[in-house]
């Protein structure tokens, strides 16, 4: 009966009997308390275990999907200063989003899919360090490491990640030639590179070039097509 109670399955009649026993039998009450406590303990334990699991999900999601707003505060402050100094108060009162705002709304460094971090791995080679640094949003160091890797391994996807890190580090001007070079190889990240090239142009406030690339992506691409359409609407 206690177990049925714990599982909330007592019938009305059983409930009445149960309530009577609680009053008349002190031993019964103690036993009920034990089972109720066990239920609460199992709940707390299960919830905490699930929280730990979600923390793992969150770490993976954050490293794969570092939104602009999750950037280190330093970066945000720098970006804000640049926006404020560069564009001035004048733009803030305009309702039209600026290219910089559109950039910030849309830029998320491409997630690291080429070298997933394995927690607990002792493998601390340059590639691992480069991708870990990148995933943490430490773009300046990531640029340096990816560049070295590209020099030694000549894998073109390093160009793509270097460019992402450069944009993350507010150096879109250096990212543009790398992305163009990558696109010329027709590698597997060609569409992705077009998207980031458009964002690089936005960071550089080069609206015209951004529009050209986005139109190309909408017509021929398969990556971020709906986002590109929305961006085009905002830009035009």
């Amino acid at each position: 009966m206690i177990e049925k109670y714990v599982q909330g399955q007592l019938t009305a009649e059983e409930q009445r009997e149960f309530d009577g026993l609680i009053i008349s039998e002190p031993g019964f009450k103690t036993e009920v308390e034990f089972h109720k406590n066990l239920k609460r303990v199992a709940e707390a334990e299960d919830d905490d275990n699930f929280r730990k699991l979600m923390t793992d999900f969150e770490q993976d999601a954050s490293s794969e999907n570092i939104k602009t707003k999750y950037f280190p505060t330093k970066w945000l402050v720098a970006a804000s200063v640049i926006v404020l100094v560069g564009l001035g108060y004048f733009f803030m009162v305009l309702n039209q989003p600026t290219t910089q705002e559109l950039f910030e709304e849309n830029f998320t460094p491409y997630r690291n899919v080429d070298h997933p971090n394995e927690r607990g791995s002792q493998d601390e080679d340059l590639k691992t360090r480069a991708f870990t640094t990148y995933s943490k949003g430490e773009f300046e160091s990531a640029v340096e490491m990816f560049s070295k890797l590209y020099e030694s391994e000549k894998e073109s996807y390093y160009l793509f990640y270097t460019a992402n890190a450069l944009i993350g580090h507010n150096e879109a001007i250096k990212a543009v030639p790398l992305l163009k070079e990558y696109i010329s190889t027709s590698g597997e990240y060609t569409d992705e590179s077009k998207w980031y090239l458009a964002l690089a142009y936005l960071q550089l406030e080069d609206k015209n070039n951004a529009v050209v690339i986005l139109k190309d992506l909408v017509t021929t691409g398969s990556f971020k097509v709906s986002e590109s359409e929305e961006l085009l609407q905002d830009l035009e």
Partner: protein
Amino acid sequence: MDKDAIADLKSDDPLKLKALYNKYRAPFMGFAKRYHLDAASLADIYQEAFLALRKRGFSGKLDNVNSSMKTYLFGIGKFMIYDTLKEKKRTTTYDPGLHVVEEEIDPIAIITPNELTKEQTLLRKYFKELGEKCQRLLTLFYYRGLSIREIVLVAGYKDENNVKASKSRCLKTLREKINN
């Protein structure tokens, strides 16, 4: 609400859970950023909202919900955001033009379980000393409210008698730990 999604939510399969968690994470962050909370707070809120959703799944409260899982989860999240803002005593101006709102989200109130009592904290210590299989069995029965028959299927026991015998042994061990 999608029955398959509820089944995934209630499962212990990390891949299914992760897929579900990630499916709504970015949309939630987009939805929630209008409340001007920092990213870390929003991530915490999302986790607690997702947990609360799962708990509602266990208690069967999602079975007859008509709205989508996403809307329901966002409703819980919205309630938690309001709670957080209230705690921080911050005011925020609602700006409907800031983002495109796909659907109106009504906040869904969540009651947070009470902190463990002293007695429960002690019981938890002994509970954690039990073997993994016992912990899981007791969790499935007591917290998740699974019937003996369901436990046979979920936890891979031979039959119902096997579950009942195991449960008795686990409870006996737990009582012995308490009394020693």
